[in-house]
């Protein structure tokens, strides 16, 4: 009887360890964020194996959970960041300046998501900034900027609303990347900058 109990105890421990490590390694634990990838652009993480049959089983599971129906790299590449330029996690309580220049792709966008991988529940209609909005700014050398904040900024400033975003993250998409980008993503892509401006109740 005692022998059987030992077997059962060890079996349960084995199942628990096997299950937990699988969930942790593939991004299935609650609260896990899509922040892994073999391509690192500053604070942005991506992986060119997204959507591909070449993806490792762990990465395929992670993407199924955090980016289901993502396209393979010849069509689109994806990067995600959960921190600003200084490495501090994004917060709905803070204001940021998102900025950048020309991107090596036919079209690109930066979109704001909550920690559940969904668009935050607000009616502001301002959850993404894309190449067409950047072109409308007509900046020198393709430079563009937008404010990320929970409240609409004054004036005509481009805006991404973080209302109800909590500790949000940003996904940077490049559709139809230019020739050479897949071979040298870190050399050819200058990822957007996200500068923290100020926060409610604290100094910036």
């Amino acid at each position: 009887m005692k022998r059987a109990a030992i077997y059962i105890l060890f079996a349960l421990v084995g199942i628990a360890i096997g299950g937990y490590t699988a969930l942790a390694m593939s991004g299935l634990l609650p609260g896990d964020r899509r922040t892994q990838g073999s391509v690192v652009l500053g604070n942005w993480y991506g992986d060119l194996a997204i959507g591909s049959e070449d993806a490792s089983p762990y990465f395929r599971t992670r993407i199924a959970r955090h980016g289901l129906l993502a396209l393979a790299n010849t069509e689109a590449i994806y990067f995600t960041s959960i921190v600003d330029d200084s490495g501090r996690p994004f917060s709905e309580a803070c204001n940021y300046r998102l900025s950048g220049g020309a991107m090596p792709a036919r079209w690109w966008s930066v979109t704001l998501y909550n920690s559940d991988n969904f668009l935050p529940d607000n009616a502001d209609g301002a959850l993404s900034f894309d190449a067409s909005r950047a072109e409308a700014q007509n900046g020198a050398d393709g430079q563009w900027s937008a404010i990320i904040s929970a409240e609409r900024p004054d004036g005509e400033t481009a805006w991404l609303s973080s209302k109800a975003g909590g500790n949000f993250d940003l996904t940077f998409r490049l559709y139809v990347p230019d020739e050479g980008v897949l071979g040298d993503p870190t050399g050819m892509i200058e990822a957007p900058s996200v500068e923290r401006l100020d926060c409610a109740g604290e100094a910036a």
Partner: protein
Amino acid sequence: MKRFFGPALVAAVLGIAVHAAIIYLSPQFIMDRAYTMLGERGTPVHGFQLSPQMRPDTQSVVRPSPDLAYSGCRFDLSQAPDGLLVRMAAFDGYSSLSFFDAQTNNFLTVRGNGEAQEVTLTRENSPSDKGIILIRRLAPTEEDYMKVAEIAKSDICEVQ
């Protein structure tokens, strides 16, 4: 210590088995749930449906892009012995026709380039019987979306 060898071996075998099962079965499980959920939201088997503009109250899969208009078709080749005719109507802006198998792999994508694109999907060129076909069209504004809504009426996903 020797008496723990057997139980430890059982623990290791079960742990590895559970670990592998979760890793290998999760994508299929998640895709199956998405397939069912899209059906509950009106995406037919063998027919395209244009999703509403992606907004917090209309999103149905994780990380949708609010700048894109999505048309989805679920496929089940066990019900289409001669395959499926899939046609994406021509669109001036960026558009793509992409195919996802039961393991979540994007096994085929055809870019629009301003012209209609057609693919015949069969058991020979699809890794799985069931999957999801997605058309993406660039539509950052309400006006763009309305244009897509007209064009998307000509998309085809039908049994041959």
